[in-house]
């Protein structure tokens, strides 16, 4: 293992669906000699790509969980996280980005910057991950890498600069010209493993020179020495340009762009060189933790192996080897036998085995140093937990976890399935924070919640395959919410005198909608003069909170309500916590009835990419589903239609879209906002709720 941190790269490969991430990763592993044969994603050999280790992934040709793997290239150790492309699994992408230092943004030379790339790019911005771009599929008909570079500018706001130029395009794509060394590269041998460098073809020389100039110009912004060299018109050393490009890339102000076709084995090796040259090593990236002993003050972490351990568990996997915990070590050395503390639970554990993962095979190592990604065995934790050396109390910043928008009732078909189902759910919820489960108190059904139809579908499939659990699923249910639209006063007295000690409590105040910020609930105590004794205030808050889970209107969770209590009364003998909780519940119902409550539904941002001839039909489909079309964007042969559509109307959309566009359109969907539902729909939902209640009873 290379031990210097400068030679470590923790990178992610992220992109739109079907841009060829997994194929690219496969090639990288092959060229770095981690694997000895290439298996294609939907290959005829039936093996499937190495990174898609889960059976389901192989079958569907998509990557669901991000397997972490490592390889070595030119003396550098590269840890790769293969991230899933579908939006439903973005929690995986987010978690990967959290632990990565840099990323390769893969784009399709035909499709260009597609909707998912935009989402992924936003996530990279959030975690300030520097990236380089790889324009894949240059052999496809309609390939136009320079159009994609223009889109990187216009759609993502990247300062994208070509570092290479294609030699031929589409079926004629033969190799790439490196604008740094001004050489042409061809990829020969059965699997393109031999890179032959040659002079630039004469007909492309002039174009290459002008592109090189553009590239150097753009890079000169980051290096005074380079600017001087340009002004003096002296020969420019490659190292000077590389330094400037690297500086720009680390600042996220320069995105070097590389070209190729992973499937045709072209352009992958130069991309690996670029990863080593331009993407940051762990020491280049600032990482901070929160110090729990000092009111969560920020603490800088140094990738120094001799300091106390700080490591983050970013992924759990329950595989053939037992529970495996993927960790990124930020500081210190996570060695066999070291004692670590889980900051969340305070539990002390001794590290048993430390391994390095390569898709589903693994290799034992002695220790994972600062900056490295490794995996631990038999550690009890949830994903997102921080491990530290005893004596320090740091936690990595909490990761952004979106709330689920869709739910599904499941029930096991037989007794055996019952036991396995709970095992499966227990594991899935630990692995994926966006996947949740609970038992509905009224219907006694097990409910699973997640980020989209496909998200839940995949888990149901996994239950079947990995746990042999056959479950019946109900109709997916949308996570509606209730909220109020106007201020309303309440003044409620709870009084009971039925033998024994009585109950007495009066709570008065008002409720109003929360207009700013993201808070779901605010409780403001403005009681003066002790009309409600201080010891009962907490009981009041508890009472109000109890009402939030099920709104009085249609029993959906209540959000966006601010409660202010300003008066009340108590009784020396009969008042109690219980009495005030009951009074608060009564007060809530009283106020809520007057506060003009409404139902909100989740609205999804739906982006459909369709060949232009079907765009009219696609807009019709979206319109039928209560969609509000934001716009239609002409992208040459395709049109991108963007719309906001209620989630409740999106069930089965993929089938309808496929059949009405001859399977040529694809769409992505992500949660956008909650919006009030129209009256007619509210009535329909009320009927459904009533029906459900009846059948449960």
């Amino acid at each position, binding site marked *: 293992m290379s031990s210097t941190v400068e030679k470590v790269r923790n990178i992610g490969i992220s992109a739109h669906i079907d841009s060829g991430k997994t194929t690219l990763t496969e090639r990288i592993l092959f060229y770095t000699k981690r694997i000895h044969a290439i298996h294609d994603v939907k290959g005829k050999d039936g093996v499937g790509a190495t990174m898609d280790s889960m059976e389901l992934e192989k079958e569907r040709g998509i990557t669901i969980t991000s397997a972490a793997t490592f390889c070595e290239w030119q003396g550098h150790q590269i840890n790769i996280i293969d991230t899933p492309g579908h939006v439903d699994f973005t929690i995986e992408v987010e978690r990967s980005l959290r632990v990565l230092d840099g990323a390769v943004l893969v784009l399709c030379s035909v499709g260009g910057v597609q909707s998912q790339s935009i989402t992924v790019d936003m996530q990279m911005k959030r975690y300030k991950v520097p990236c380089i771009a790889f324009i894949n599929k240059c052999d496809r008909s309609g390939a136009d890498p320079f159009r994609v570079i223009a889109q990187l500018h*216009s*759609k993502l706001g990247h300062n994208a600069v070509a570092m290479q130029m294609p030699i031929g395009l589409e079926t004629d794509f033969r190799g790439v010209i490196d604008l740094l060394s001004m050489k042409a590269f061809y990829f020969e041998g059965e699997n393109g493993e031999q890179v032959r460098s040659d002079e630039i073809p004469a007909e492309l020389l002039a174009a290459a020179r002008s592109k090189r100039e553009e590239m150097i110009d753009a890079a000169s912004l980051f290096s005074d020495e380079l600017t001087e060299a340009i002004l003096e018109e002296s020969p420019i050393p490659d190292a000077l340009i590389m330094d400037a490009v690297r500086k720009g890339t680390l600042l996220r102000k320069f995105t070097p762009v590389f070209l190729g076709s992973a499937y045709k084995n072209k352009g992958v090796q130069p991309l690996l060189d670029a990863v080593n040259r331009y993407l940051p090593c762990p020491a280049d990236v600032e990482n901070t933790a929160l110090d729990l002993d000092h009111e969560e003050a920020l603490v800088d972490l140094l990738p120094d192996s001799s300091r106390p351990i700080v490591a983050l568990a970013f992924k759990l996997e329950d595989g053939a080897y037992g529970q495996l915990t993927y960790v990124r070590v930020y500081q210190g050395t996570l060695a066999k036998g070291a004692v670590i503390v889980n900051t969340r639970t305070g539990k002390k554990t001794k590290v048993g085995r430390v391994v390095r993962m390569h898709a589903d095979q693994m290799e034992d190592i002695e220790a994972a140093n600062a900056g490295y990604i490794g995996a631990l065995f038999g550690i009890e934790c949830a994903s997102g937990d921080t491990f530290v050396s005893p004596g320090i109390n740091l936690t990595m910043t909490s990761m952004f976890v979106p709330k689920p928008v869709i739910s599904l009732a499941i029930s096991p078909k037989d007794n055996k399935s019952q036991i396995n189902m709970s095992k499966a759910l227990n594991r899935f919820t630990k692995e994926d924070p966006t996947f949740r489960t609970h038992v509905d108190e009224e219907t006694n059904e097990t409910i699973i919640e997640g980020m989209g139809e496909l998200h839940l579908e995949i888990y149901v499939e996994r239950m079947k395959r990995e746990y042999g659990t056959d479950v019946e699923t109900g109709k997916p249910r949308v996570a509606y919410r209730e909220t109020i639209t106007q201020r309303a006063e309440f003044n409620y007295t709870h009084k009971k005198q039925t033998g024994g000690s009585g109950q007495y409590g009066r709570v008065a105040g008002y409720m109003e*909608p929360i*207009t*700013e910020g993201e808070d779901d609930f605010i409780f403001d105590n403005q009681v003066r003069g002790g009309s409600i004794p201080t010891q009962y205030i907490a009981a009041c808050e508890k009472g109000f909170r109890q009402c939030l889970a099920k709104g009085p209107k249609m029993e959906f969770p209540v959000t966006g309500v601010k409660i202010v209590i300003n008066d009340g009364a108590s009784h020396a003998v009969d008042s109690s916590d219980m009495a005030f909780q009951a009074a608060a519940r009564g007060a809530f119902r009283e106020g809520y009835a007057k506060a003009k409550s409404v139902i909100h539904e989740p609205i999804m941002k739906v982006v459909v990419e369709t060949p232009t001839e079907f*765009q*009219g039909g696609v*807009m*019709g489909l979206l*319109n039928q589903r209560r969609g*509000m*079309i*934001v*716009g*239609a*964007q*002409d992208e*040459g042969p395709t049109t*991108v239609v*963007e719309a906001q559509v209620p989630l409740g109307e999106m069930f089965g959309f993929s089938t309808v879209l496929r059949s009405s566009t001859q399977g040529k359109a694809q769409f992505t969907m992500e949660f956008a906002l909650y*919006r*009030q539902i129209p009256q007619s729909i509210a009535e329909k939902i009320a009927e459904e709720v009533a029906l459900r209640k009846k059948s449960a009873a």
Partner: protein
Amino acid sequence: MLKNDLILRNPLRQLGFETEDILPAGAIGAVLSHAGVGKTALLVQLALNGMLRSQNVLHISLNDPVNKVNLWYSELFHHLAGRYEGAQINSLWESVLPHRFIMTFRVESFTVPKLEERLSDLTEQGIFSPTMMIIDGLHFDESRRSDLNALKALAVKNGMHIWFTVRTHRHESAGLDGLPVSFSAVAGLFDLVLELQPERADVHIKLLRGSGSTPAGSPLLLDPSTMLIKDKEL
């Protein structure tokens, strides 16, 4: 309430036109200026004003992607409604949005028959029928005459009016009528031509051609900091 307030505050009324839309159905108008002075901002405000009165606006952009056009609208709207309460603004914004449809084309692939086809896709399925159309980013010269005639016919047929942005260049001298030479060849087709002129710290909105009247002493201005139309100099 907020909606009525915003409509009333609309300083465009000061231009002295009889109808709220300035242009009657079937008419076409143009806003001229150098790059970056505020043509799009002015037209987006006209559009917002229409949307607040429940008129459907089809915004066609030949330069910018949908998201950027959308940003123009949301920024200007929130500036316009800036002094009102957050929740109210948001719900009003949500309610005017369905009155807008953004369509983008690439400059090189934009043709009138293509636009007509897209438009009928929308109207025939009952998805969207615009009463106002904005075409942002078209290049003008004599060769556009037939396109403009076709667009005018389209406006008449669909009972809508169309606004164009016309980018002028500093190096280009103005003709006798005060219009840039390249534009004056087709200027006759327009029912109304406005020009944006930066003067000191403000941008003046001037009527070059058309039937409105600017009351003397109160020029209409565009505030360069917010790009909002205002009726007084600072």
